[in-house]
């Protein structure tokens, strides 16, 4: 885990309310693995005080660079989008556990909304290993990004709620009745992940989900980011930033 002062070398709008930021973070770029996230300072002074967790969208270790794609939803991301190139911010990472990729001979990747962002490094890792099906969904085509990059990594299908790109509907409606996959990796809104988890359970496929929770430290000390997780028939609070963000779908409690 590294805390690094990073220069912003790109910060541009790539969709409605969606921005991409490139950061010069040599050490974090070197250590980062697919599925991990960073904690980003969103301003120059002590406001915003807490860093924002953002999935790592691209890792270019050789260039000492990572990128994040973020939606402007509140104050922090709003201020982040206004930082000009050349600004310096502190970045903490890589945080959390990466996607486990042991048996991913035939993998299915399912991303919804901003959940698409942290799936790209996984898709790239898996593309070398075998057959990857990639399903991405969003409200509309303006909120889809990195499609060209994903398409290079496997078989890509897209859904949008308004039908402006791909099939009209939820991303889960794209999925074939029989996935015949060894592993599912999903990130997106909770209802989407719930549907994916149920499907995986029915078809007995190992399924991994990436969760979100409000965070204090991002490294496991504040006990702030817990989610209820099943462990030996009991439900315990586990830290999204340390034991997560990736959990096995069978552990995740959806209705707390």
């Amino acid at each position, binding site marked *: 885990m590294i805390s690094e002062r990073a220069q912003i070398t790109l910060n541009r709008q790539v969709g409605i309310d969606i921005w991409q930021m490139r950061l010069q973070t040599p050490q974090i770029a070197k250590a980062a693995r697919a599925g991990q996230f960073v904690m980003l300072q969103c301003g120059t002074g002590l*406001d915003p005080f807490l860093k924002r967790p953002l999935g790592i969208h691209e890792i270019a270790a050789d260039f000492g660079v990572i990128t994040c794609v973020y939606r402007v939803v509140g104050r922090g991301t709003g201020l982040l989008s206004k930082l000009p190139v050349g600004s310096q911010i502190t970045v903490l990472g890589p945080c959390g556990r990466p996607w486990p990729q042991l048996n991913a001979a035939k993998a299915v990747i399912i991303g919804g909304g901003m959940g698409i962002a942290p799936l790209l490094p996984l898709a790239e890792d898996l593309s070398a290993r075998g057959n990857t099906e990639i399903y991405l969904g969003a409200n509309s085509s303006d909120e889809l990004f990195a499609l060209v990059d994903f398409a290079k990594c496997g078989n890509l299908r897209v859904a949008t709620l308004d039908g402006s790109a791909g099939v009209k509907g939820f991303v889960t409606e794209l999925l074939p009745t029989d996935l015949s996959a060894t592993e599912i990796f999903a990130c997106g809104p909770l209802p989407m992940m719930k549907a994916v988890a149920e499907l995986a359970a029915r078809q007995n496929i190992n399924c991994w989900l990436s969760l979100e929770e409000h965070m204090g430290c991002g490294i496991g*000390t504040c006990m702030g980011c817990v989610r209820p997780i099943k462990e030996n028939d009991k439900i315990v609070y586990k830290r999204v930033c340390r034991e997560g963000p990736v959990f096995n779908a069978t552990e995740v409690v959806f209705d*707390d």
Partner: protein
Amino acid sequence: MTELAVNLAGLTLKNPVMTASGTFGFGREYAEFYDLSLLGAVVVKGTTLEKKQGNPPPRIAESIGGMLNSVGLQNPGADEVIANELPFLQQFATIKIVNIAGGTVEQYRAVAEKITASGLADALEVNISCPNVKAGGLAFGTDPLAAAEVTRAVRAVTPLPIILKLSPNVTDIAPIAKACEAEGADGISLINTIAGMVIDLDNRRPFFANKVAGMSGPAVKPVALRFVWQAARAVKIPVIGLGGIMTGRDALEFMLAGATAVQIGSANFYDPASAPRIVREMEQWLEEHRVKDVKELIGALEE
């Protein structure tokens, strides 16, 4: 050579910088960033007699210049802490302080006894900002009588130095600090978090299940400094100052206000290497100002 060591209730801290309970876990995570032996003392997460599951999420909110938490003392309980957490800290040449909490006086006594018996703690910090079940949920630390009762109970079962951690949610800190002193506290620390509320406007409900949460971070510093100054004038036992300390300058300000040592809390979240950085910054300021011994600054505010 600048002298940084301070004496605290019979313990010698190599420097006045400690970590604040609940912001440092049991030290493991920060040990990835630096050698914990650089610190004067480490105060671990609040430990209760039994395992505590804590409050449901969300537990963290941001405020301007600070944050609120409603962790609800999630911890594995005294036995687990003794078996699996405290041993890790023993490799570091720093003072180890266990922060304890309870819902009844009896629970405070029992957890103090267990931690003392383990031999793994150099001192206890007694968090009396917990809701007092009998007094209808008001914190022990808001009433001099309740504060005295907890102090007496813990004092009776441990020979370790005990530091009473006080709440800032009071009209007057002096009688509470004095009550702890009278019952044998070796020191007091303050401030714990300030009670605050966050509202989720769009859903028209309190953001935290518990409604009221605890505010910390640089936003609270002026309030903390005031309480530390008031408490230090009220008692003779050492005062440990905390609340919003982000820099070496902040830490030295608390010492001028009367603190013998300081604790670094939310700053750990802002910058994981805050605590050793603050030690360096203090040392640098002292050198620049030709102060040979940091102890010269304790309570040295010219009024």
